[in-house]
């Protein structure tokens, strides 16, 4: 069960494609671990409002809130606000007020910091790192952003560091007119072609932006490297969340390969919405009980369920095979939605099944 996967872990990253139930899985893991006496914070992004309410979260905020759950430990939750985290980072790294204002007031920063592709991913990592540093929680559970590129967030810190080290930034931050002198004639040609393609204003603005950013690059790179180190740390565990549908299985397998390539600590798979069914039903008994027309409809319904259950079993067997039989937990396809603590407890029953040794059951009320 999940508690075994997470023994001695301090960070859990729930990853997977959109729509597979990452947010509820992250919340249920957090609740289950809090029920086991740990002080847990779940960091989530834009959950359904009712789930937010059930967790006691305000509409939006970068602050943690204690969830009023009856558990032995503590359950905290927060929603990530990428733009605000970004602003806070600038404030933190800026050497002086003038630099801070220059960046925060820069047109490019303002237009893009909330919409930047990858910024949400990076900021989630950043906040995770910050909370881990502060050490106020036994366990942090991160619900990763719903990106189509499930791995953007892994690469985000590395990409930022690479960019800071790159000549592109030096090109813009070097003194003199757009750093032309630094790169000599070759760059001069590149620059003039670039100007032709983009227009001079855009280059000038970008240059201003990167120049004001320049004084902070050391701090940013250092930070990005530490965020990266945290992801690969043995105290971190990646949990892959998937649905049993073929497209999700494909993404999960791809994701797992990337985790392995990046040498990141993988704990196991949670398969949500798994259809289950038993053997064929006794038609004669059904007809006796319900009459022929209704029995036929019930049988039809059941056969439909059984076909889906068969597909799910096949797909999950395939995923197990491709992942080299890594641990996997299945949550059935519930006929109601999970949007309160009761629903999360129901999920916990599958994620933290009672072992024969008599481990405590989750969230007893």
């Amino acid at each position, binding site marked *: 069960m999940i508690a075994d996967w997470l023994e001695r872990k301090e960070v859990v990253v729930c990853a997977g494609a959109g729509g597979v139930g990452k947010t509820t899985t992250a919340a249920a893991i957090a609740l289950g671990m809090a029920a086991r006496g740990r002080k847990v914070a779940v960091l989530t992004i834009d*959950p359904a*409002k009712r789930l937010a309410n059930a967790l006691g979260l305000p509409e939006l905020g970068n602050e943690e809130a204690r969830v009023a759950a009856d558990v032995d430990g503590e359950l905290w939750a927060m929603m990530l606000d990428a733009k605000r985290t970004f602003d806070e980072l600038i404030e933190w790294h800026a050497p002086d007020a003038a630099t801070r204002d220059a960046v925060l007031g820069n047109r490019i920063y303002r237009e893009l910091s909330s919409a930047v592709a990858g910024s949400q991913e990076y900021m989630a990592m950043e906040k995770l790192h910050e909370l881990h540093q502060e050490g106020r929680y036994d366990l942090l559970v991160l619900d990763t952003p719903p*990106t189509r590129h499930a791995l953007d967030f892994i690469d985000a810190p590395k990409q930022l560091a690479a960019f800071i080290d790159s000549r592109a930034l030096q090109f813009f931050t070097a003194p003199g007119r757009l750093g032309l002198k630094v790169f000599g004639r070759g760059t001069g040609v590149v620059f003039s*072609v670039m100007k032709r393609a*983009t*227009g001079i204003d855009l280059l000038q603005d970008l240059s201003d932006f990167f120049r004001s950013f320049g004084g902070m690059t050391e701090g940013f790179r250092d930070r990005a490297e530490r965020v990266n180190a945290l992801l690969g740390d043995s105290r971190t565990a990646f949990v892959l969340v998937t649905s049993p549908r073929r497209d999700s299985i494909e993404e999960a397998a791809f994701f797992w390969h990337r985790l392995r390539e990046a040498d990141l600590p993988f704990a196991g798979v949670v398969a949500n919405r798994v259809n289950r069914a038993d053997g064929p039903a*006794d038609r004669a008994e059904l007809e006796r*009980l319900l009459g022929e027309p209704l029995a036929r409809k019930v049988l039809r319904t059941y056969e439909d369920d059984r076909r889906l259950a068969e597909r799910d079993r096949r797909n999950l067997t395939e995923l197990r095979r491709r992942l080299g039989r890594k641990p996997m937990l299945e949550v059935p396809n519930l006929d109601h939605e999970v949007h309160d603590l009761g629903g999360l407890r129901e999920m916990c029953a599958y994620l933290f099944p009672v072992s024969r040794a008599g481990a405590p059951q989750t969230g007893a009320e």
Partner: protein
Amino acid sequence: MAKLLDKRLVVVTGKGGVGKTTVAAALGLLAARAGKRTIVAEVSEQEHLPALFGRSGAGHREVEISPGLYGLSIDPARAKEEWLRHQLRSSTLAGMLGNSRIFQYLTAAAPGVDELVTIGRIWDLAQLERHVGGTRTYDLAIVDAPATGHGVALLRAPRTYAAIARVGPIARQAGRIHEFIADHARTGVVAVALPEEMPVNETIDLGERLRAEMGMALDAILVNAVYPERFDTAEAKRLAAVNGRGPAAVRPALESALSELRRVRGQRAEVARLRRAADAPVRTLPFLFEPELGAAEVDRLSRELERRL
């Protein structure tokens, strides 16, 4: 909905996992059947459309996947090269700039560049006169856009860049693309949802964001995978009454029927909530019990769309 397919560009978006690609394919098939040469563009390195039709993908190349229906998966790197070539009117200069490490770093780091070149390529597919990537023109371009938040970011990229660049070629082109996207006569937006709480919430938010950020409105909301209502009220009562009393050999079947009834009730409530909150027509598509979806299922959905739109 005939009006929807009379536009030049239809953007299909919605929360992850709701079946955007399947719906985009069904819309494309419907348009192609009506005699329109149609292309469905996938983005963000996704390429699921060809597999739906039992074919392997050709990536950035525009290929016919069914009579009159074409597909491609837009590769931002390729789109960037094409744009540079068009922009500089010289493949030598474009190659030089494209190979420049400074330019590579810059465009990798400058936020939103991939979105901008992707939407630019989509825009081009919807033009009567093509600028990049080919000369074949289409009557309709459909884009299988990224999930809600990223979908809006994609639509907003041209305006953002037009504002940042202010003057010059990027400002001019981005402004033109934005104008096209925001023009309701030429561009339509379809939201795909599931009859569940989170997708319904996201759909409502999407409508509000489109209006607030882009001054655009949804043309239609398609609620996908809606369960059939197989049992009437009397039958549902009957099933509830025998619940748990049947012999073991029929109990799983009874439970399956009752479970479906509970699911149907939840779904019905979510569809009703969506209808109340949304200011676009809401249409439903049936849940298909086929284990995997293929050309036959896409065809069936396209016929459902034909009846309902």
